[in-house]
């Protein structure tokens, strides 16, 4: 691993339609120790455009981590997950589902679609801090991911 690579901020793609939640993640990440570049898209179609670098996202850098909400406008989070995980180019990008839903079916379904990790949004702000930092440190610092 070169220094340049090391210093390269990690690109996190947040797929989330709620403005409040986006802001909250941004707030939490402010205290992050990992150099990151948070990109945000608001719906499922935009997420796919970003990943395929098309339309408004021609220059979009490939994300190191995707944080995905399940209930999204236009294209559902489950569909987005399914498409990423069946696309040979995209399937290696770790996807963390971060959602309010703790329905058994949603959890089951997400893992069947090969999600890397399913996390229920905490109702406690302090827990949320821990959570987002946890995601960052685990997926962006701890885990060794394959090179493209």
């Amino acid at each position: 691993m070169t220094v340049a690579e090391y210093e390269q901020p990690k690109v996190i793609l947040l797929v989330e339609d709620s403005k409040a939640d986006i802001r909250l993640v941004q707030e939490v990440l402010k205290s992050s120790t990992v150099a990151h570049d948070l990109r945000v898209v608001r719906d499922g179609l935009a997420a796919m455009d970003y990943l395929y670098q098309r339309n408004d996202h021609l220059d979009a850098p490939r994300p190191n981590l995707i944080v995905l909400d399940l209930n999204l406008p236009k294209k559902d989070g489950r569909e987005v997950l399914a498409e990423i995980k069946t696309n040979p180019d995209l399937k290696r990008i770790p996807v963390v589902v971060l959602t309010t839903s703790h329905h058994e079916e949603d959890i089951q379904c997400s893992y069947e679609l090969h999600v890397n990790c399913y996390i229920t949004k905490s109702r406690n702000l302090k827990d949320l801090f821990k959570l987002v930092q946890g995601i960052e440190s685990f997926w962006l610092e701890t885990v060794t991911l394959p090179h493209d």
Partner: protein
Amino acid sequence: MANLVSQQDQHLQELEKLAIHTTSQIQAYGMVLVLAEPDLSIVQTSTNCHSLLGISAQQLLGESLESIFDSFQIEPIKEQITAGNLDFINPTKLWARLDGDNYTVFDAVFHRNAENILILELEPTDSVDSISFLSFYHLAKVSINELGASASLEEFCQVIVKEVRQLTGFDRVMLYRFDQYNHGDVIAEDKRADLEPYLGLRYPESDIPQPARRLFIHNPIRLIPDAKAPVVELYPALHPSTEQPLDLTQSILRSASPCHLEYLHNMKVGASLTISLIKDGALWGLIACHHLTPKHVPYELRKACEFLGRVVFADLSAREDTQDYDYRMALKEIQTRLVDEMTTSPDFIEGLMADRQGLLDLTGAQGAALCFGDRLLLLGQTPSESEVKYLLQWLKGQALDDVFFTQSLASLYSDALGFKEVASGLIALPIAERNYLLWFRPEVLQTVNWGGDPSHAFEIVALNNQQVRLSPRKSFERWKETVRLNSLPWKPVEIRAALELKKAIVNIILRQADELAELARDLERSNADLKKFAYVASHDLQEPLNQVANYVQLLEMRYGEQLDEDAAEFINFAVDGVSLMQTLIDDVLAYSKVDVQNAELALTDSHQALDRALANLRRRILENQARITVDPLPAVMADGTQLMQVFQNLIGNALKFRTKTPPEIHVSAQRLDKAWLFSVQDNGIGIDPQFFDRIFVIFQRLHTRDEYSGTGMGLAICKKIIDGHRGQIWVESELGQGSTFFFTIPVGGAERDRRRV
């Protein structure tokens, strides 16, 4: 006793075979000449020839007919006999010269018996002229005109008996009708005013035994002008060629059977005339004329009566068909009324019961029972409720068709002996499994008005030298034996009415089932919608709540130091409120997810379910320093997740409502007759018994949230789960004494089929 009965039976069987038609005796009011063909010489004669003709029987034998009657009378008769046209001669008048100008006029009738033997019957008469055709016509016309088209069968019969009595002058004229059992009902009567009425009485079949009935059919008019007159023998007693007694079936003069004469004597009848009413080749009834003293009815007048009988009976039988038709229509009308009631009433059984009399009249029953599932309704005269229940049990064991009926239930089902007075006759209409409609009829002995008191009206059994004579007294007894344990028979039209009602009920049930299925489909749809709603609501409600919670907390984190004490408290209230709202949504969702319909019942180790609950509660158990003890627990038919939820809620409550002493919770189970009984016992604060029911109701809480947190849904969820398993849940407790929650899970799983017809 048994021997005596069988001996009597044997005698009676012999009586049945008695050949009362072959006899060598005739009545005294006429004479018989048995002729040989073709010369018409006399081979047998009745011994009263001497008193009527002045010639002895011995003298007459071998003589030709011309030796008594002038040949100018006999020649044309011979021609017709040779041509085989007896109808052209009968009846005819014959003059016999006694001496000089002294003649006797006879009504003469020729007939051949079954053995083709030619018989001439002669009856002395005063009238020389025949009743003219016009007189016959007049007779019939008067009678028929007297009847309006609308007259009932009974009114019609009444006119017939009145007319016959006027014509003949008998003291009493009755019209009998025979039922399926050949018992006779007196349906019309005209009599001398001073005589006791017989109208409405019923005479047992044995009063007119089978052989007599056959004679009535062959010989539609029978006269016994003097029941006490001595009989006249034939000479010789046996026919010379056949060497047998003569078959006198069609003879007018044939002597009445001793039994019949005895019967007439018993009834104090001196003379009788009987006109047979025959419908479709069977004896429909009789017109019976009785006179207290001997009475002769001239041949011509008898013929007129016979004619009247035939003419009016044709009309009468048409009327009877109409009456049957009317009865059918009447039943149809009742049926329509019942069906209307059933369809307009929200509950068709109530509808049926709304017209109780109609329900009985539909089959002409005196009692009825409606059995629908566990409901049993009785009306009219019926066996007791428990007797009907046993009867239904028995019926269920029989392979029944569309309808089951009997007029002698006791002969099939011996328990019915106990209630023969109300239910010797039964119609059972199996409608669907567990659904029956029953109609009852009493034993016939209870219903009928017997003709006379047999105990003193008739003589005791008469036996002489092994020879049995039919005794009216005994025949009545025998008749009583045959009808005992029987009801009046069900008419085909009544059975049909019952069947049609069944069709209507089945249609109504099917329609209601359709409506129920439609409702169930609607419910299913709205249930699915609700489930979706619950899911969406929980998710979509949670998001903004999280948002509020998070931002309030963010506010506190970032600006906490700048806030005063009030602001800090406000923020706390906001956070608490949101948190409660979140818990509520979780619980409502949990409650709505207890899906009774789709619970997957399987053999579940209840110990495992408990362990999972304890694992979920691990943190709280540690915090509370609770001690939990568990007895061995059984495997039960249950939905494992739901059972776990029940344990979790009950133990959670035990942990929550604790006293200062650390919680001690004991879980155990014991086997009852049809269920497992689980108990969760604690040493907590206890519950005031007045709240025992309230605590299982959704959102019912006994404490403020400051005292004990929670939404008041935990026990409601438990109840819903246990209900879904067809078990029961309850609590035993006292304030300060701890609580024990009990719940049952049926052995072998819940009764899944919840449908009710």
